[in-house]
């Protein structure tokens, strides 16, 4: 694999290794936080080399850097790159029958900008005063140089800008690719749901990442050039700005970002549930429409993050209604997944288990968010671990399990080798159960009032009784970390001596499995496929009868099927009933 290759599959593999590396880093940082809440101030095992002065114990300044970097690394350098950079780059062109992305140079460039950001993040750990420590949200004035001096905060702010630039480039690339590079016959109604999820999320990237870039750039100017866009109070000289403007800009990006992190996973769940129930997705249009509605609403709900910021009742009410509204399309989508299982023939493969686990943790994460969407019930829960548990279930656990659903599903296509199915199942199941333990424990602690980001929560007497709960939660977190070893073993072993994957191990009909080699060569397809039907043409009676199997490729001609009707959009009426087998109605 050449590091300069412009092929989307090579770019995807680069993102995969980098993303997994940062996932490991972010996970270790999370374990340090968990350790601190269970055994405050006690030396963290194995950290003495990094923190010799405290013999491995977290000090308050170290702790603030640790939780700040955990959030930033996970969001910008692990989960987004894995979902979009790795799975998105790899799957999207293949799934729509394209030879590559619309702008191959841009996608390669995007990776290198991301990599530069990653290097800055790593470098920030080595500079004096350590990396960023103002929280992943980096609210000013705390994040300005008066209150968080040191090069680390600046380096990490630039790194976020890099990650944002890269996200914008692949967002734009994906949107254009889906709009312009689909194979003949690949109508919008025949796109796999994964592509729909990636497409909507990419639109959100294009619209809202620039808002983050603007806020971050202004913040950098406040840090470096002496401007005062976001500085008020004692640190402001001569007028000053308004810290709340930053909060609005940040969350105008930040809330769509949580949908950016989950939409691709939603799409994959929709596809995988259909594939492994061996039947077409229930209400395909309704599901795609629901994802679109959530995307459209996602930019209009953000200020629920600011319910306690003292905003005007008019705004508070508006955002409360809009926020609650977004649960309707989410429910429609979820019910469609459940309906897809019903009357299917459910196969509990590793990708399917991961998809079902994603549904469970996402469902719980969504439900626990309802109370945060209404102003009154948000008040006791705002800023507590309830919020942390809620959003970790959705954009942590659900995105993570979504990534692994996708990885286990497409790994044979990416590397031509089959992972050990048993190990994969053990990994998925243990991760899912332990996720519920960790984030369930956080929900409980938050409900009892434990506030976020406290170095020592037990300074507060009203939180003292939560120590045993937090210790159990921490035990779950360490076990969760240990469970990832199963994946690493599986990965390393498979890459070295795993057996060659079959051409279509999951027996599904999407283009990447039916028209391309494993792994696909340059240009993906020897001949551009002509798409005849939707992505979930499973258990179709005509196919069972004539081919003796329950699946048919999206571009596979059924014996006796009229070829010329394919992709001929001008004359859909000319397609016989057979040629629309599995197409979506």
């Amino acid at each position, binding site marked *: 694999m050449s590091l300069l290759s412009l092929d989307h599959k090579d770019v995807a593999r680069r993102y995969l290794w980098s993303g997994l590396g940062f996932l490991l880093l972010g996970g270790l940082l999370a374990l340090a936080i968990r350790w601190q809440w269970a055994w405050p101030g006690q030396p963290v095992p194995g950290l003495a080399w990094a923190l010799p002065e405290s013999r491995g114990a977290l000090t308050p300044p170290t702790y603030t850097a640790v939780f700040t970097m955990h959030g930033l690394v996970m969001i910008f350098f692990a989960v987004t790159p894995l979902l979009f950079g790795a799975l998105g780059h790899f799957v999207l062109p293949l799934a729509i029958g394209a030879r590559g992305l619309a702008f191959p140079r841009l996608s390669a460039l995007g990776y290198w900008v991301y990599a530069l950001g990653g290097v800055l993040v790593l470098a920030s750990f080595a500079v004096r005063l350590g990396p960023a420590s103002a929280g992943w949200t980096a609210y000013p004035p705390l994040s300005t140089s008066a209150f968080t001096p040191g090069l680390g905060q600046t380096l990490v702010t630039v790194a976020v800008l890099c990650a944002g630039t890269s996200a914008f480039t692949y967002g734009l690339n994906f949107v254009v690719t889906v709009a312009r590079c689909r194979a003949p016959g690949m109508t919008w109604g025949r796109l796999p749901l994964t592509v729909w999820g990636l497409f909507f999320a990419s639109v959100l990237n294009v619209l809202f990442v620039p808002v983050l870039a603007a806020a971050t750039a202004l913040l950098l100017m406040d840090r470096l050039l002496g401007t005062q866009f976001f500085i008020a109070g004692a640190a402001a000289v001569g007028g000053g700005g308004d*810290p709340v403007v930053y909060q609005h800009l940040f969350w105008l990006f930040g809330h769509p970002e949580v949908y950016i992190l989950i939409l691709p996973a939603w799409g994959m769940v929709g596809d995988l549930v259909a594939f492994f129930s061996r*039947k077409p997705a229930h209400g395909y249009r309704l599901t795609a429409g629901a994802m679109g509605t959530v995307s459209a609403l996602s930019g209009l709900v953000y200020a629920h993050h600011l319910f306690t910021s003292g905003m005007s009742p008019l705004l508070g009410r508006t955002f409360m209604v809009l926020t609650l509204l977004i649960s309707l399309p989410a429910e429609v989508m979820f*019910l469609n997944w459940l309906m897809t299982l019903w009357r299917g023939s*459910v196969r509990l493969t590793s990708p399917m288990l991961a998809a079902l686990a994603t549904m*469970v943790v996402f469902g719980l994460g969504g439900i626990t968010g309802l109370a945060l*969407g209404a102003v009154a019930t948000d008040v*006791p829960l705002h*800023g507590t671990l309830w919020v942390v548990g809620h959003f970790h279930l959705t954009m942590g656990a659900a995105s993570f399990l979504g990534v692994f659903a996708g990885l286990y599903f497409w790994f044979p296509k990416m590397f031509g080798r089959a992972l050990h199915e048993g190990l994969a199942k053990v990994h998925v199941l243990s991760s899912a159960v332990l996720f519920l333990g960790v984030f369930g424990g956080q929900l409980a602690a938050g409900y*009892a009032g434990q506030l976020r980001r406290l170095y020592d929560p037990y300074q507060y007497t009203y939180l003292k009784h939560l120590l045993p709960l937090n210790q159990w939660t921490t035990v779950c977190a360490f076990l969760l970390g240990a469970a990832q070893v199963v994946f690493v073993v599986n990965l390393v072993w498979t890459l070295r001596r795993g057996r060659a994957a079959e051409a279509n191990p999951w027996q599904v009909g999407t283009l990447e499995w039916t028209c391309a080699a494993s792994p696909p060569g340059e240009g993906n397809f020897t001949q551009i496929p002509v798409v005849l039907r939707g992505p979930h043409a499973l*258990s179709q009676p005509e196919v069972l009868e004539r081919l003796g199997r329950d699946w048919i490729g999206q571009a596979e001609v059924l014996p006796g099927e009229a070829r010329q009707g394919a992709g001929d959009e001008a004359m859909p009426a000319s397609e016989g009933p057979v040629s629309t087998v599995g197409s979506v109605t």
Partner: protein
Amino acid sequence: MSVEGKSQPSSDLPSDTSERTLALREDATINGHRTDDAPPGVDKSVEGKSQPSSNAPSATSARTLALPEDASVDGHRIDALLGWSHRFEAGMAALALGWMVVAVWRFRNAKRAASDGGTKRSRAWVFGLALSTFLVVDGALLVGSEGYLRDVLWNLQVPATDPRTVRIEINAHQWSWEARYAGEDNRFNTSDDVVTWNDLRVPAGVPVWVQLVSTDVVHGFSLPNFRVKLDAIPGRVNQTWFRAAREGTWEVACYQHCGTSHYRMRGELRALSDEAYAAWLREAGRQAVQAYDVDDSAAHWGWEWKAP
């Protein structure tokens, strides 16, 4: 009813004993005028206070899977709403999870799978079920929340019209809560202002109207036992209000990350009897006048009270 069980020995001030006696003596009066607005949850506190040996302000009756003890007059409305929403949510979770388990168990490796992506009818069912769940669950949250906002959270008319209302200006710093009481002249930033650090005192049962700023970074002013949370933001005055249901000592916590010692930005709130509060304010105001230093400009802050 005593405050012993709720006091914090480590931070007790010398004057504390006399206050306690005062508070004890005034118990009858408190109980007298509290009956009309006491929330149903009041009895919870009684068991909490029955353990005088505890040094925790509120941990005495704390359960792991419960909200912090509610010591406010109006907070029970939020708690009840949360309780209802949790019941709905538990129902939704059970339904969804149960459905999934049954579907997987029943249709695992089934010989035949349906070949359709749903019928018009089944899709209508999905939409109808989603819509009705949405209307019930989200509707209950919206209506309940709106009632609380209208009557309590955003209804500053209550403290504005109540003659007994206590006004406090709070200035958040890295890392403490500086509170200012107007004193006898009822005007802020004058020589008889009472200024305290991490030590709020309020009369029980009376509206307490807080206006809040920050000097340096964004802080979060929260009273977990009173269901109060409000950001302290440099450059703007935020305001909220609450009523303590009974006497006792509770904690003030910062909920916005505000730097290295964020976790130590802890204060205490003492709800006193009317008389104990008045006595304390009088005495503290007298001492403030004596200690007033015209040249100490850093100590001179405060603003004209903002209209709601």
